[in-house]
């Protein structure tokens, strides 16, 4: 089955993002396909390149990077959310004359990419924010 994920949870406020990343790995282990993960609203913070995780906690950024690098899963941060949260890739950093803050395993894109993933996937699973 072809899956896509929508993540609106931040990496460390609650379990949503960690569950999403583990779910993504389990999908692939079980032989499903995962086309893309779209990060919206505060979920864009999952792309923070400089997040330093304590050694005794799970490295959620590492789980995302592995999906992109080893399984060719597209990781897209919603551009409107990303800019608000200070998440800039190289191109946006240049445009706004700031430092880049997004890990290169992620790209920045529009809601159209969520629309596209939603149309193609058999299932889209949302991992929501808290509160």
């Amino acid at each position, binding site marked *: 089955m072809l899956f896509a994920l929508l993540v*609106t949870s931040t990496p460390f406020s609650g379990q949503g993002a960690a569950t999403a990343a583990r779910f993504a790995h389990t999908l692939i282990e079980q032989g499903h396909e995962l086309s893309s993960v779209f990060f919206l609203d505060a979920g864009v913070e999952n792309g923070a390149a400089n997040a330093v995780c304590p050694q005794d906690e799970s490295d959620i950024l590492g789980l995302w990077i592995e999906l992109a690098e080893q399984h060719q899963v597209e990781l897209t941060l919603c551009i409107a959310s990303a800019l608000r949260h200070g998440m800039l890739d190289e191109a946006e950093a240049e445009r706004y004359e700031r430092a880049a803050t997004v890990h290169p395993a992620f790209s920045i894109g*529009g809601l159209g990419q*969520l*629309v596209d993933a939603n*149309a193609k996937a058999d299932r*889209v699973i*949302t991992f929501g924010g808290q509160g």
Partner: protein
Amino acid sequence: MSERDATRTLILIRRSPYGSSLARAAIETGLALAAFDQPCNLLFVGDGVLQLLPGQDPGPVGLRNLGKLLQSLPLYDIEHVYVDNASAQRYGVAEDDLPLQVDMLSTADVQKLLSEHDQLLGF
């Protein structure tokens, strides 16, 4: 991938209008789907029904008016706006006060609605 009918998507809206930025994110996702000609309906449930209250004035808290955005929905190709009747009753949101045309649904109808869509995007 084989050809299939257009994906029917239901956006499940559970956030109060100014308590969470996800309230606006949900509406914008619905508008994006509609802009790309994807069949899309909205369902307001729980705290989400508060988004429909008339006379919103979020200026003093420095936010854009979500109620105005919702009033513009008929201009976009959002097919239906559904409201969970039990949630509306709990919050005293009366259908006659609402700024746009909605369909009030019983709990049984909500269950049916969920099963009739291909994708559910929950906010």
